[in-house]
């Protein structure tokens, strides 16, 4: 990946130097969270199939809807839904962080670490709050 060799500066198609990539750097929280932002984005990309399944079933009729309700009630269904909730909230908060950075605010070392930690703590606690409210709305776990 890292081609740092000095090529002779002749010919229009000479190999140009590339900047060093991921494996060169010490892993940091901001870097990890940047990767997680992309992973949650990719997860949500396929996770929207759950939303599509839910909506199409609701539009199809009571029997199809009962199947979705059954699956979401299973342990695997709940785990997937919990992961989807976390990915959604993490990607949303990570997105807000990136929007703040887009305005060139919060770029100092301490500030960007704080924003990154806030994203992590915020997304975990918001996920728990959403599920707590969800269970309360249903009148307790079923």
């Amino acid at each position, binding site marked *: 990946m890292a081609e740092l060799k000095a090529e002779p500066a002749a010919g229009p198609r000479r190999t140009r130097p590339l900047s060093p990539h991921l494996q060169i750097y010490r892993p940091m929280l901001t870097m990890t969270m940047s990767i997680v932002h992309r992973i949650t984005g990719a997860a949500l990309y396929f996770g929207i199939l759950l*939303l*599509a399944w839910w909506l*199409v079933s609701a*539009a199809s009729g009571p029997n199809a*809807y009962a199947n979705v309700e059954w699956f979401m009630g299973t342990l695997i269904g709940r785990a997937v839904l919990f992961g989807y909730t976390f990915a959604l909230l993490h990607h*949303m908060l990570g997105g807000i962080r990136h*929007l703040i950075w887009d305005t060139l605010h919060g770029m100092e070392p301490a500030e960007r670490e704080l924003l990154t930690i806030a994203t992590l703590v915020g997304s975990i606690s918001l996920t728990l709050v959403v599920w707590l409210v*969800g269970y309360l*709305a*249903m009148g307790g776990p079923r």
Partner: protein
Amino acid sequence: MIGQQPNDMRTAARRVRGLGAARSGTRDFWHQRVTSVAGIPLTIALIVIVIALLGRSHAAVVQILGSPVVAIIMLLFILNSAYHMWIGMQEIILDYLHDDKFKFLSLMANTFFVIAVGLACAFAILKLSFGV
């Protein structure tokens, strides 16, 4: 100047226009920001709607999802998300796939997937709204 030939009369802008891995400029970058800002209130609204529908009967879910305000919010969420995830997956593909054949096949698959899922969701909501 990169690749500048002695007798080249083209301007610098002419030579960079239409370049970049996707052969387009900064439009996608900007549209990704626009859809991310729109996505914040829409995501919160989606979560509220889903919580409000938890554990309800099919008839109640149909009635609530089909009511105009809820249906409009859901449609906005889906259309906004579809465009946002189309750009996002395109960015991932362009970052990791360098072979032209796989790259353009993946970009095509991205478009097909997003349109299919987006249309399925939108159709379902419209059907819930208009009955039949």
